[in-house]
């Protein structure tokens, strides 16, 4: 993703390039893990483990849940850019 600076100027060292690629991988993995947790909370009936299979409703809910999570991700990103990063300076 371009905002991580991957694929930038050719003078970037190997270490920096690998670190950026690692950061990107961590970001994607973290998002996936949160997605699994959050869509489980929204879609899977926890009090009902009578079946090991996903029900039709659960499957449909999961598909939409992932799509909506991505949409929220984009919305939040846009909003953060609009608001500027003034808060970043205030962090320890």
């Amino acid at each position, binding site marked *: 993703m371009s905002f991580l600076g991957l694929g930038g100027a050719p003078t970037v060292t190997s270490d920096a390039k*690998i670190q950026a690629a690692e950061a990107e991988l961590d970001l*994607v993995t973290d998002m996936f893990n949160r997605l699994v947790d959050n869509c489980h909370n929204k879609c899977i009936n926890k009090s009902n483990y009578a079946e090991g299979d996903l029900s039709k409703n659960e499957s449909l809910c999961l598909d939409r849940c992932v799509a909506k999570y991505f949409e929220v991700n984009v919305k939040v990103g846009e909003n953060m850019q609009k608001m500027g990063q003034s808060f970043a300076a205030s962090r320890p």
Partner: protein
Amino acid sequence: MDQLNQREQQQFQKIVEQKQMKDFMRLYSNLVERCFADCVNDFTSDKLTSREQTCVLKCSEKFLKHSERVGQRFQEQNAAMSQQLNR
């Protein structure tokens, strides 16, 4: 990723493999934690009741299927997003 040369890709590949191992362990631990939390509520004995055992089996089966499906959708959305970003 295509910006890494061959040697860098090899190095990165090693990092990816280490992370996949950790990821798998994390999935496993999450699974245990979730199914324990959702299925085990009787502490009058130190053995799982047969009802709890069944619940744990179904819970872990369902969680893996859940995780698999979310993974498929995730990759589709991610691919679509990457395409948009690159053009």
